[in-house]
C-alpha cells in the first residue's frame, strides 16, 4: 500500500501526485481542488462525479463515474471536469444553457449532467429528445428538475449547431 507518484492530466494541467492504490479518481480530483466534481452516492448510480476520461492513446474521451475508477488505473490519462469546459466569463454553451433554462436548482447534479451532455453532443450533435434522455440515464437530480435539464441540452445543441457557441 505504498503511495506511488502518478500523473493526472486534468483540464490541460499535468499533476504529479503521490497516492495509495485505494484512492478513487473522485477523491484524487477533489483533493487536487477540482471540487466541481461532486461526491454523491459513490456507487455509480447518481452521476454527480462524472468526468470525461481519455486513456493514453484513446481516440476520444468517454464519460465515466470517477467514484468507480481508481486513480492508479488512469495514470497518464486526460481528464476533463465540468470546470474545464468553460469559464465564468466564457461559459461553454451547455453551461450557459443550463443557467438560461433554469436547469440548475440546488446545482449539485449539474456538473455530472453537463459532462453526460458534452459526451452526447461530441458524438451526436443533433440528438432527439429520446437520445438526450438516454444520455442522462446515469444522472439523478434530487430536485427532480429533469424537464429543464433536457431543454437546456436541446438549447445548447441548437446553439452549437448554429455556430454561435463561443468556446467548444
Amino acid at each position, binding site marked *: 500500500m505504498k503511495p506511488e507518484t502518478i500523473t493526472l492530466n486534468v483540464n490541460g494541467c499535468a499533476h504529479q501526485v503521490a497516492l495509495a492504490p485505494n484512492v478513487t479518481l473522485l477523491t484524487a480530483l477533489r483533493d487536487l481542488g477540482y471540487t466541481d466534481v461532486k461526491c454523491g452516492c459513490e456507487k*455509480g448510480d447518481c452521476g454527480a462525479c462524472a468526468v470525461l476520461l481519455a486513456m493514453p492513446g484513446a481516440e476520444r474521451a468517454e464519460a465515466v463515474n470517477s467514484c468507480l475508477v481508481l486513480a492508479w488505473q488512469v495514470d497518464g490519462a486526460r481528464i476533463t471536469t465540468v470546470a474545464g469546459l468553460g469559464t465564468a466569463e466564457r461559459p461553454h454553451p451547455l453551461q450557459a444553457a443550463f443557467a438560461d433554462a433554469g436547469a440548475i436548482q440546488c446545482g449539485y447534479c449539474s456538473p455530472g449532467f453537463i459532462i453526460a451532455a458534452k459526451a452526447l453532443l461530441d458524438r451526436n450533435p443533433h440528438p432527439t429528445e429520446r437520445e438526450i434522455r438516454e444520455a442522462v440515464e446515469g444522472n439523478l437530480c434530487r430536485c427532480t428538475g429533469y424537464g429543464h435539464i433536457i431543454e437546456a441540452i436541446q438549447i445548447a445543441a441548437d446553439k452549437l449547431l448554429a455556430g454561435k457557441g463561443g468556446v467548444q
Partner: protein
Amino acid sequence: MLPEFEFLRPHSLPEALAMLADQAPDVMPLAGGTNIIVELRDGHSSPKKLMDVGRLPELNGIGRKGEYIVIGGGTTITSLLTHPLIAQHGRALQEAASMLGNPFVRNRATVAGNLANASPAADTAPPLLALGAEVELVSVKGARWVSLDKFMVSVNKTLLEPNELLTSVRWPVPDARSEACFYKIGLRKADACSVINAAAMVIWDESDYCRQARIAIGAAAPRPVRAHAAEAALLGQPLTKDVIEGAARMAVQATEPIDDIRGTAAYRRRMAELMVRRLLTRIVESRAARRES
C-alpha cells in the same frame, strides 16, 4: 474509503498470467471496476491484491475468426453498441448492452467482468447463452474453452480457477435463417438491475420449422439458466401462437426464483412465462419483417 490492497499493473497478458501463477489466490483481476469498487467500498470483498487488466491490449477487440465471432474479455459494454459485427451477428447481445446499467457504467464495464462476476442478473449472460457462447479461460499452463452454460455455476461462482483469466468470448456465427432477441424487466426504465431478464434464439429449417432454439433466463435461479424443456417444445414445430404459448409455460420449469428486494418468486415465475412468450413472438415478427424487406 476503500480498504487497503496491493495493486498489480501487468503490461501484457503473459505478464498478467505469470502474476496470477505466482500469487493466484490473493489476486482479483480488475477491469472496469464497476462491480468490484462498489463491493470493496461496501466491505463485501477484500482481496489482498487487485490486478489491473483494463489496459491489456490482448483483451480488446471484436472480430470474426472462421465460423466464430470472437470478442476480447476487456471489450466494454459501450463498444458492443456500435460494432457492425455485433449488430449483424449478436443483436440480442446488443439489446442487452443497451439496457445494462447506465452510459457511464457501460463505458467502463466489460463483458468478461459481467460474466466472471456471475451475478444471476448479469445482462450479457442470457443473450450469450442464447447465442451458444463459450468463454476462454487462460493460465500459464494453457487455454481452455468452456461453454458459458457450464462456466456460471452459482451466485458469484464460476469455473474460473484462481490462476486463470477470462480472456475472450466467442459464439458461432448465427445461421442466416435465425433470429434472436433480449428483454429485461427492471424496477425503473433505466439504470436498473434486472428483476428478471431473458433472451432467445431460433434457427429455422428450410420448411420453416424450428431446427434449433435456445432460451435463457436470468435472475430467476442461482445462475442464468437455459430453459431446455421450452426449447424442446419448439423443435420441429412451426412457431405458431399455440406452440409459443406452450413453450412459454414450460420455460417456468427451468426457474428456481426467490423472493428478494427486487421482486417475489411468484412474480418472477409469471414474468418468465410472459417474457418467453414476448421474445418468441418478437422473433417471429422480426423474421416476417426481414423476409418482406
